[in-house]
Every structure is written in structure tokens, then in C-alpha cells.
């Protein structure tokens, strides 16, 4: 690799935040599974790189009352090993399971997957469908931003210079929720997502009290299909209502044609996959 940059590996969050506050903000490096490819390809040309691999903490998955808190440096493999994720955020475990290959899963992090801003990010739809809040820390201040408001466009987001993603908070995941992710791709392993769909459905007395539908690879950034969600909330899950929600999710997507699939196919698959994942909520309810 021929790019030239200064590199530092801060040993504490304070040290990292100070380095990020420099007049020319550095590039942050987490797992490196995308960033190093982009540097090599000349898409990124940083002068200063801060590697976050030595930061203590930020790699735990813990409960905080109702909330589930995931450190930004948690790897995809960590997600797969976590009983808390399996119980409370099964869609996130499913997404981790279909994420790239073993070596990439061992290195790639939750914070890195969010920060990369790929429209095809596998962890983002499940996190969006679980109402994730992104904790952003800069020297002297911390704020939380809903993940659904985090992206402002293709690979653009609300982070201010000097801010680091430190944690991801799921406010109230419940083991009884129907929470699923499905990745459609050209092959089972090591593939880029053609369409990704995450759903969360909470049912009370046969009526849907909460619906979340999030989509990947069908817009410049991962999105929520909020019109589809309102078709479901406050109603019993019937075949007709599910069909209306699936159609609304398809309408909410604006996919492009590329080497992996046509836009028309992607939009059709959104409808099929949303219908299928919601249909399973009826089956599991018995």
C-alpha cells in the first residue's frame, strides 16, 4: 500500500478524543475491513489515521435496565457469541451470521459498520428495526442520535468533526418480539447484500402494538419503511394487512440497477421479503 499517513493508536478514549479534536480531523480506523481497501484503491487519502483497536472498554454487550448497550468496538463475531443478542436481538445475530466471511467477522465492528455508511450494511437494518440510538462522544460531551436520523445521504452522516461512535443503545428489546433479518444475495456466503430486510413486530392480544421495517441496498442509505409500519400498528396481523404493508415497503424503496441486480427486481423482492418475514410473525403467534 503506497498511501502515506501518520498513525496513532490511543490507549484511552480521552487520548483518542483529543487526537480527533485536531484542526484537521483524522480518519478513524476500527476493524479496517473496508477502510484499508478504500485507502488502497485511492478512494480515501488520509493524512492522519487513528486506530481504535487499543481503546479499552467499548467492546461489551450489557443490559442497562430495559436497554441493551453494545460497545462500538464489539466485533461481528462477538455478536454471534453473545447470549444477550441471541435472546433480545435475534435479527442482529442473523445479520452477523450472514456477514462476509470468518476473518472479516473477527475484525469488523458494530461502530465501523455504522460509520462506513454503506447502503448494503448488514448490521444497520436490524439495529434500525430495534430503534437503536447511536452514542456520539467528543471531548467533553456525549449525545445520542436515533440511527434512523444518523444518515443524511450516501455515505454521509450527522457526526460532527471530532465525534466518535462509542456505543449503540437498543432502548427496549423484548424476547417476545418477532425480530428477524433476511439477506438476499447472489450466494450464501461472503456476498454483498442485494436486498436486506429487518422487521420487528410486537403483538399485544393479537394486535400489532409496534412495527418496524428497515431496508438495505434499496436506497442511497439504509432506510425505515415508515408508511408500511403505520399500515400494521394498531391492527391485527392479517394476510390483507401484511400485503398492504409489503406493498408500501416496496413503494418506499428507490433501488438502482447494478451488477448484482436490477432496481425493478430489488423493489419486487422488498415486497416479497417483507410479506414473508411478517407472515412468520403470524405463524409464531400460533
Amino acid at each position, binding site marked *: 500500500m*503506497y498511501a502515506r499517513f501518520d498513525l496513532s493508536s490511543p490507549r484511552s478514549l480521552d487520548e483518542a478524543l483529543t487526537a480527533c479534536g485536531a484542526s484537521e480531523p483524522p480518519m478513524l480506523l476500527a476493524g479496517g475491513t473496508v477502510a484499508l481497501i478504500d485507502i*488502497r484503491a485511492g478512494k480515501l487519502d488520509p493524512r492522519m489515521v487513528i*486506530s481504535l*483497536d487499543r481503546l479499552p472498554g467499548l467492546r461489551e454487550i450489557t443490559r442497562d435496565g430495559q436497554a441493551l448497550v453494545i460497545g462500538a468496538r464489539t466485533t461481528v*463475531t462477538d455478536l454471534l457469541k453473545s447470549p444477550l443478542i441471541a435472546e433480545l436481538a435475534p435479527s442482529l445475530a442473523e445479520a452477523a451470521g450472514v456477514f*462476509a466471511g470468518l*476473518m*472479516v467477522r*473477527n475484525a469488523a465492528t458494530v461502530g465501523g459498520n455504522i460509520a462506513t455508511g454503506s447502503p448494503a450494511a448488514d448490521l444497520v437494518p436490524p439495529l434500525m428495526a430495534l430503534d437503536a440510538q447511536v452514542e456520539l462522544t467528543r471531548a467533553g460531551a456525549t449525545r445520542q442520535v436515533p440511527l434512523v436520523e444518523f444518515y443524511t445521504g450516501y455515505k454521509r452522516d450527522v457526526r460532527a468533526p471530532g465525534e466518535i461512535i462509542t456505543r449503540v443503545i437498543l432502548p427496549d428489546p423484548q424476547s417476545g418480539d418477532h425480530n428477524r433479518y433476511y439477506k438476499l444475495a447472489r450466494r450464501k456466503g461472503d456476498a454483498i447484500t442485494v436486498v436486506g430486510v429487518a422487521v420487528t413486530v410486537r403483538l399485544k392480544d393479537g394486535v400489532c402494538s409496534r412495527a418496524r421495517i428497515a431496508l438495505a441496498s434499496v436506497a442511497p442509505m439504509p432506510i425505515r419503511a415508515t408508511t408500511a409500519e403505520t399500515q400494521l400498528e394498531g391492527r391485527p396481523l392479517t394476510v390483507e394487512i401484511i400485503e398492504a404493508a409489503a406493498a408500501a415497503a416496496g413503494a418506499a424503496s428507490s433501488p438502482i440497477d447494478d451488477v448484482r441486480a436490477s432496481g425493478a427486481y430489488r423493489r419486487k423482492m422488498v415486497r416479497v421479503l417483507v410479506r414473508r418475514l411478517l407472515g412468520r410473525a403470524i405463524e409464531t403467534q400460533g
Partner: protein
Amino acid sequence: MSQEQKISLTVNGKAETLVVPTHRTLLEALRDAGHYDVKRGCEKGDCGACAVLVDGVAVDSCLTLACTAEGREVTTLTGLGNRETPHPLQQTFMDSGAVQCGYCTPGIIIAAKDLLNRNPSPSEAEIRYALSGNLCRCTGYGKIFEAVEQAAALLREARAMERTEA
């Protein structure tokens, strides 16, 4: 902070000190230091040919900056065993004919080692899954999966023997 750093790490149980430019990947630094058993493939995290263990966990060395390996224990294929005393994975890869051109073999054995560290009795599906980040373009994967299954069995037997002796 500079564009070149001096790093100390352990490679296959031996302490090494390397002077590397900050942009150098672990793959490049290891090959520069003579560890040619680490193979350069796609350099995009697709093929797995460059896999090494860092503190016991398999990573693509092409997606790791060498400087971040400071103080870590790196294991490459030859760190697992040699011609005289091969690791069970090396033995079963030879015995089952799981090697054709051999270019993907070091990375595949490293990924398999990561799997067997965590799971001493993997099913065929679990083996396939663990190796889904490794590409072989010669021959197919059947004999590779068999070799990993047989190595797992050999390792289980060896552990059972140790327990009876102890």
C-alpha cells in the same frame, strides 16, 4: 507519531522487531520478514489466502495494519507445525489430497484452526460456514471439508489420550 514505526511482536513463538511504514499491511510486513507461507491473494478480504492468527483469532492480514500488531502474538501456517511434526490439520490435508496448487491452503488451515479452537466437534455445515471466507479456485472443497473433519477427530483422540494419562 510518524510515518514509520518500530514494532515488537511474536511471530510463531519467536520475538521479532520490525521497522515498518505506517501504511504497511501485516501481510506485506510478514512477507518482507521472510514469512512466505502467508499468501497475497485478492487484498480485499474476499479470498482468505492471507489469513493469520492474531492472539489466536483468524484475521485477514491484508486488512490489518502491521503497526496494530505491536505486542501481539501472530501465528502463520508454519507456526502450527513443520515437516517433522505436522499439526493434525497439516497431516490430514496431505492425507486427504485437500491440496492441489496449495496457494489457498495456508489461509484455509488458519481459518480451520480458529474454528477448532472454538468448536472441537464441528459438523460439516459448521466447517463449510467457517471456511466461507476462503476461496479455492483449483479443485473444489469436498476434500478440504473432509480434512478438517478428520483433523478434528485426531485432536479429540489426542485430548482423550491426555486425559487418560493424566
